[in-house]
């Protein structure tokens, strides 16, 4: 009797705390959403209004008309798609090699791969920029995409799932005379489709949200990606808050939709690195 009572109290407390944090985390989203359809004066108004008195879409219109939002959205999308496709190809190919072949120096090379994740971005930031200028890649999509296209995490991730591909299947294909690349492409790759989906979402998200590297590489405005342009809209003294909030919201939508569509595989995939290390 007494036991169930304390248990009920504990449960109420636990739920109370979890919901309190959940509401605290949802508040910035809700407040942003509400402010995208407000007049600037109402954003500053006391007391704050959750549902605007005169909701309107002028901030969104201004975003497309004054800030050429569609162009920057497409820049981001193009870079993210090319990055994702090339990353998936290179990572699965190398992951396949590490999982399904034995070759001299394999363990050493894999150790180098893991070690490469330790190199801090900012340490190589300045020389990398100099290099990209020398290669003539500055102010181009290629300059944004190429340096980070063969990330070690993706290879590590794909190796994990390639290991589950049955070796007998590959051997029988070899007996039938298939080339090694064909074995990778037509047998191994279709079998790891779920892992590819997870890595695709991760790669797309990383590229879509990337800020500091595109910030230095993309000099001319018409090439710039959403985070770079949005950061440029932030001006601590004079700023159209409603427009900036609308940009922030719209830029988050693709990732949010992608995540909600694939959340199960996505959450399982994210923790792979943590479990294995």
């Amino acid at each position: 009797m007494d036991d169930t009572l304390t248990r009920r109290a504990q449960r109420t407390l636990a739920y109370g705390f979890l919901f309190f944090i959940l509401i605290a985390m949802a508040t910035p989203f809700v407040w942003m959403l509400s402010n995208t359809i407000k007049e600037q004066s109402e954003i500053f108004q006391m007391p704050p209004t959750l549902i605007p008195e005169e909701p309107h879409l002028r901030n969104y219109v201004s975003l497309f008309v004054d800030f050429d939002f569609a162009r920057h959205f497409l820049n981001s999308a193009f870079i993210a798609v090319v990055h994702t496709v090339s990353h998936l190809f290179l990572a699965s190919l190398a992951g396949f090699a590490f999982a399904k072949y034995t070759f001299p120096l394999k363990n050493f090379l894999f150790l180098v791969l893991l070690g490469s994740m330790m190199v801090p971005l900012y340490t190589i930031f300045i020389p990398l920029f100099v290099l990209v200028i020398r290669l003539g890649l500055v102010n181009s999509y290629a300059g944004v995409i190429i340096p980070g296209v063969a990330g070690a995490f993706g290879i590590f991730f794909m190796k994990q799932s390639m290991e589950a591909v049955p070796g007998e299947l590959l051997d029988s294909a070899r007996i039938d005379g298939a080339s090694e690349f064909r074995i990778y492409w037509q047998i191994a790759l279709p079998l790891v489709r779920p892992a590819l989906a997870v890595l695709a979402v991760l790669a797309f998200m990383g590229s879509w949200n990337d800020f500091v590297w595109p910030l230095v590489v993309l000099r001319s405005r018409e090439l710039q990606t959403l985070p770079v342009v949005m950061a440029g809209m932030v001006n601590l003294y004079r700023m159209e808050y409603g427009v900036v909030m609308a940009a922030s919201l719209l830029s988050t939508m693709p990732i949010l939709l992608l995540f909600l569509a694939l959340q199960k595989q996505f959450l399982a995939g994210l923790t792979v690195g943590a479990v294995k290390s």
Partner: protein
Amino acid sequence: MGLTGREEQIRAAPATPLQTAQSFLTNTVDSSIMKPADEKGLRAWWSRSERKVVPYVFISPFYILFIVFSVGPLIYALYLSLHRWPGSGPMRHVGLGNYTYLAGDPVFLKSLWNTVYYAIGAFLFILPLALVLALLINSTLIRIKSLFRIGYFLPILTSTVAATIMFLLIFNNQFGLINQGLALLGIPALKWLDEELVKISVLAVATWRYTGINVLYFLTGLQSIPPELYEAAQVDGAGAWAQFRYITIPQLRPIALFVGVVTMIGSFQLFAEPLLLANGGPNDASLTIANYLYRMGFTNAKLGYGSAIGWVLALIIFGLSFIQLYLFGAFRKED
């Protein structure tokens, strides 16, 4: 191997990808042409050594890109850090001059302190909060687990830019949401983006964005603890606290190490939040090492000095990673 092996495969797993593979196999069997055994030259060499060469070909893109875009720049950064160079024209060799100047540069020391402050804040605030949330979600008290798991995770989907922009309207010194809330309670507005409080505000943005992913990591760790351990402890009469102290905490060790290293590396590379929330200010109060490196290397075109900052940052990160691994006994041999 031959046919029997393949038949077993087909029977064992009738999933779609396997069917694809299977139909491919049948096709190649039907269409394969037997090559004469005495074929010579390049082709013969290739059919002999394809399996030895191919793995290197498959992994080579990574190593080529890694050498060109990471190892090369890493070495070049070291070289640059020994020079004074505005990005064009001749370089001037200054030995360790950049490093000795760095040691006495008040702005760098301030950015170092700020960065350490953020890292300590992450360890004292984000990680304990994430652990408590994970323990609660994992406990038998809570039934609707996925609502919280997913709800807490959503913030990290936003870019750091979008996230920080959201918080501009929350921490604004005059009309931010927090101050509006305080005003409703009759409490005078606090200046969240002024020198005294700006680091707290940056930490709040980081807490909002990074708590959820750490909840997930801890949950993974908690769920990988074998339930038999708890059952055995209960049989031995161990209470809830004893179970937590002697089973949960030791079993969480590997995941805690991972989370600790990732959090430390992330904290030391904090960039967008202080930049967009307060432009590193006011009076450099929120400036991080990465912000200062960017300011020196790109805004002020001091590429040598910026590279020296980068190498100091790398040494700090390597050193702290090593200490963490050492403290958690990652180098000890399992007996």
